[in-house]
């Protein structure tokens, strides 16, 4: 159980103690999920429903000459078949909702070119799943193989095969579809003045969300009314609705997106996918509901995964350990097509500079296509990649300066005299306890003793990060969520929200917020199913935004509803509204909590006895509130306060390496977090535990492994190293040191992703401490560990950077040798 500690330095305005907020209420969601009555996407059954299946490419790059579905149509039970040529000119490509991506590059099927293994080629709809699968086997596909590009660094070469043809990106044709740069301070001056420069090339892996509930949808088109209803396992109903309506060119009020229970997403369900268009088109053709749920291999190959990065990172320091600058050139691998991928580098880099207020930052990034799976958001949104590189450089520097790694971090973490404080990168830190978190996690892991008393093949390591709480996406310019509340005529409350809860416990923590503001019992508040026909417009659930952004909208809606019921009660009781309180399911005169009027009575006045209402009072007790965070747009130099507040995480790992098997075992782990005001400690601890699992997966096993022909070798749970329970340590050293947000009215900060951010870095630093091997690539698999230990022994050295310090490594070692960033200072128009 999480231990909550006070900070050493108090901040202003701790929020008043409340009844439900702050309590570990067991969740409202649980009952249906525990008893099997919850309905996930594969459980939806509609009358007359047909089953569709998709034929996917088995090659990664090819000229597609012809797709012939005629034989499939002759198969038993088959109702229709579709391929790319059928839809050309009929549905609109998508991908252009983002400002940086000027031309839609997504289409339901490959039309003239296959760009990655698993891309949609054709689809069949039949009476049963097996009939559909059988029919896929007789579809004829004629194609000519093209050279395959897997290595992102080769994508920028002028003679690389071009993946997206015929799309004119802002920076011209080719595989670089976007660029990113940061110019904060003066990096040349910093370099001249630095006492120490540490530099290293790092590569980070691609990780799948691998949410166990598959991606899928059931589309149902009414050919008489023209209404398309789609049940979809998604994180964002309006993103699906708007892009689907646009793609199909039908009015947005004719598309209704309903979300069943969603078995997690982690970012992998935060966009519209081809299968949603395919099921919709088939349903429109046939006038019958079409079920299309993807298989695990399809999700690995064509769902989105974490962006891969190659970084040439440099950290500049003074002799006293002060970090004065950071320079980096990044090749950012987004796969063959990507909706969100370019945003990952913007936000991951901007926020990833924290928790250090680094005064000089110089970053260039080439954002490229390869013949690999589409990349996109995944828990941490670029932060774990960035922290993996930067926090290892901090350790490299600490060793060279002879300063303890914890001490070096303590000297650098943001710790201003007053809040809010604006960093050179533009982040406005409205509160943080990162300094205390750092010391707490060090103490919990017994840092000083373990550093002093060496045990062979055991070591400790640190990682610190700060994490956005929701985000103004540079290409979106919005950061809002909305809640509508209705006080029902029996005094219960219904919450309507379009932000899909898929593990985040919205029904529970929103009820805690409403309960406190309105004085209604926790058990009387219910969350309605997300439905675009009834829910207010909101962006969806991602970016650790639910508690802070959705929670604030909910608080404001509850305050508006409270004002209404108090107005009615004041009229009926002939009291002044200022003298009234809410609580115990009623409105009462202050000091007399057992008297007053029940919400049930007040609600019934507003519905059935309107003569009881104050003159001119508009009946119906509903309220709606939308909260758009006071964040900034990204400035042309890459700076800006993109997030409304920042949660903090300091992690310490103790690992043991088995020199015979290469296996890394996490012996002990400690995490100290600042999540601001925690609405439900049990839920927040669950988020941290889950973030830790994803971080361990990224550090030690999970990866998209491609062969040189672009075949994904890890497209099944057999090969994809998702951690099982036996691979994780007991994680009980979890601490919260709350520094309530000053910007968010309730003081909350995002919890969902801060548990993942520092994990790969902390593990890698501990592995170095244990073995002397500085891993520059993720994941740290047993095979790589054995190779590294052998190589270290062969060279007879105490420390080794691996794999980028191998004798045959020919890549650049200093920034003078780095590839010329194509994101030059000249002639670029950034935003």
């Amino acid at each position, binding site marked *: 159980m999480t231990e909550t500690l006070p900070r050493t330095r108090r901040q202003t305005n701790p929020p008043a103690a409340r009844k439900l907020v702050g309590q570990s*209420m*067991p*969740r*409202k*969601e*649980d*009952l*249906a*999920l*525990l*008893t*099997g*009555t*919850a*309905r*996930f996407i*594969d*459980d939806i059954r509609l009358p007359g429903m047909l089953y569709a299946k998709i034929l996917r490419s088995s090659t990664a790059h090819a000229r597609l000459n012809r797709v012939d579905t005629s034989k499939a149509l002759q198969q038993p039970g088959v109702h229709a078949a579709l391929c790319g040529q059928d839809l050309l000119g009929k549905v609109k490509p998508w991908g252009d909702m983002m400002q940086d991506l000027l031309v839609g590059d997504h289409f339901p099927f490959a039309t003239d070119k296959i760009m990655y293994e698993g891309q949609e080629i054709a689809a069949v709809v039949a009476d049963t799943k*097996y009939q559909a699968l059988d029919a896929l086997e007789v579809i004829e596909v004629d194609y000519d193989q093209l050279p395959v590009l897997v290595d992102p660094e080769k994508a920028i070469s002028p003679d690389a095969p071009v993946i997206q043809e015929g799309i004119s990106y802002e920076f011209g044709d080719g595989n670089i579809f976007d660029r990113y740069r940061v110019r904060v301070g003066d990096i040349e001056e910093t370099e001249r003045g630095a006492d120490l420069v540490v530099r290293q090339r790092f590569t980070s892996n691609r990780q799948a*969300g*691998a*949410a*166990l*509930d*598959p991606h899928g949808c059931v589309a149902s088109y009414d050919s008489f009314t023209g209404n398309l209803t789609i049940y979809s396992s998604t994180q964002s109903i309006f993103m699906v609705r708007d892009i689907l309506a646009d793609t199909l060119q039908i009015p947005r009020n004719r598309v209704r997106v309903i979300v069943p*229970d*969603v*078995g*997690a997403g*982690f970012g992998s369900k935060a966009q519209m996918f081809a299968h949603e268009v395919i099921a919709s088109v088939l349903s429109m053709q046939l006038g019958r509901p079409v079920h299309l749920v993807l*298989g*695990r291999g399809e999700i690995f190959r064509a769902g989105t995964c974490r962006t891969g990065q190659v970084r040439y990172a440099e950290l500049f320091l003074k002799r006293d350990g002060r970090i004065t600058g950071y320079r980096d050139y990044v090749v950012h691998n987004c796969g063959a097509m990507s909706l969100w991928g370019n945003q990952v580098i913007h936000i991951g880099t901007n926020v990833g500079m924290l928790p250090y207020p680094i005064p000089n930052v110089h970053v260039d990034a080439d954002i490229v296509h390869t013949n690999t799976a589409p990349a996109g958001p995944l828990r941490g949104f670029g932060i774990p990649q960035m922290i993996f590189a930067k926090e290892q450089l901090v350790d490299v520097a600490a060793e060279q300066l002879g300063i303890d790694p914890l001490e070096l971090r303590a000297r650098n973490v943001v710790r201003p005299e007053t809040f809010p404080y604006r960093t050179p990168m533009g982040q406005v830190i409205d509160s943080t306890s990162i300094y205390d978190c750092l010391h707490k996690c060090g103490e919990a892991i017994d840092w000083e003793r373990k550093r002093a008393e060496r045990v062979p093949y055991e070591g400790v390591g640190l990682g610190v990060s700060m994490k956005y709480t929701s985000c103004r996406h540079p290409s979106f310019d919005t950061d809002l969520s909305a809640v509508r509340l209705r006080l029902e005529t029996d005094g219960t409350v219904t919450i309507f929200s379009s932000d899909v809860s*898929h*593990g*985040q*416990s919205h029904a529970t923590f929103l009820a805690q917020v409403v309960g406190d503001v309105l004085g209604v*019992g926790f*058990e*009387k508040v219910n969350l309605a199913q997300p439905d675009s026909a009834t829910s207010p417009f909101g962006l969806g659930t991602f970016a650790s935004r639910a508690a802070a952004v959705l929670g604030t909208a909910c608080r404001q809606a509850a305050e508006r509803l409270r004002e209404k019921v108090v107005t009615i009660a004041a009229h009926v009781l002939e009291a002044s509204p200022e003298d009234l309180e809410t609580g115990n399911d009623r409105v009462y005169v202050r000091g007399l909590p057992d008297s007053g009027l029940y919400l049930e009575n007040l609600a019934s006045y507003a519905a059935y006895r309107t003569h009881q209402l104050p003159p001119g009072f508009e009946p119906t007790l509903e309220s709606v509130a939308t909260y758009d965070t006071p964040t900034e747009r990204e400035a042309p130099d890459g700076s800006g306060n993109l997030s409304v507040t920042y949660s903090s995480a300091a992690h310490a790992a103790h690992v043991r390496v088995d020199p015979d098997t290469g296996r890394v075992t996490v012996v002990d782990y400690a995490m100290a977090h600042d999540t601001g005001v925690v609405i439900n400690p*049990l*839920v927040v*601890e*669950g988020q941290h*535990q*889950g*973030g*830790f*699992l*994803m971080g361990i997966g990224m550090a030690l096993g999970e990866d998209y492994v491609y062969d040189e022909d672009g075949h994904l070798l890890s497209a*099944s*749970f*057999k090969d994809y190293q*998702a951690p*099982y*329970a*036996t691979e*994780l340590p*007991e*994680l*009980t050293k979890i601490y919260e040191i709350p520094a309530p947000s000053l910007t968010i009215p309730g003081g909350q900060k995002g919890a969902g992703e801060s548990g993942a951010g520092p994990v790969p870095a902390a593990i890698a630093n501990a592995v170095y401490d244990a073995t002397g091997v500085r891993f520059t690539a993720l994941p740290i698999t047993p095979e790589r560990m054995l190779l590294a230990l052998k190589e270290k022994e062969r060279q007879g050295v105490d420390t080794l950077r691996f794999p980028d310090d191998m004798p045959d490594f020919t890549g650049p070692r200093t920034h003078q040798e780095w590839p010329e960033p194509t994101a030059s200072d000249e002639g670029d128009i950034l935003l």
Partner: protein
Amino acid sequence: MQQITLTINGKSVTAEVDERTLLLEFIRDVAGYTGTHNGCMEARCGCCAVEVDGEIVKSCNVLALQVAGRSVTTVEGLSPQRLRPLEHITTQSLAGVYKPLDALGADAKDLHPLQSAFHRKHALQCGFCTPGMLMVLKDYLEDNPEPTREDVRRAISGNLCRCTGYQHIVDAAMDAAQQMRVAAAGADSTADAADA
């Protein structure tokens, strides 16, 4: 096509099915118990775990035909009142929707001790892996009433969860094991009393 009969959660289900029909599909599509989930179809994630005659199987890797005539328990069978809701619709039980959630599980006929422990310990987030976890742990704890945390981790090492990091699942299993021991001791003493 072949006609087979399975007993699912105590109820006999007969249907004519394609020989290729998996037990998972029979449970979900024929018998209509959709609490058993399809997460990977390759016996790796464990979301489809059910009991067949008291033994755990991953129902995605078994043909319905292979277990014809046998008795299957799914997650719906853990809390029997869910299977007979009509008996329970009374004014009293409708008022029961206002019953605070933490009171649930206080009564053994409401929830299995594992279900209530999962609820108390927040051992589920999205809940998709939960039915499989519950079935595996039920089977395990019935045979091993006094496990260590390490034992519990090994018991669920055929089940994936992507949300919880497993820590709270282990907490819940230890808690439920305790409850089940108390209940078993109670049942024994009742039996002893009856014998006497």
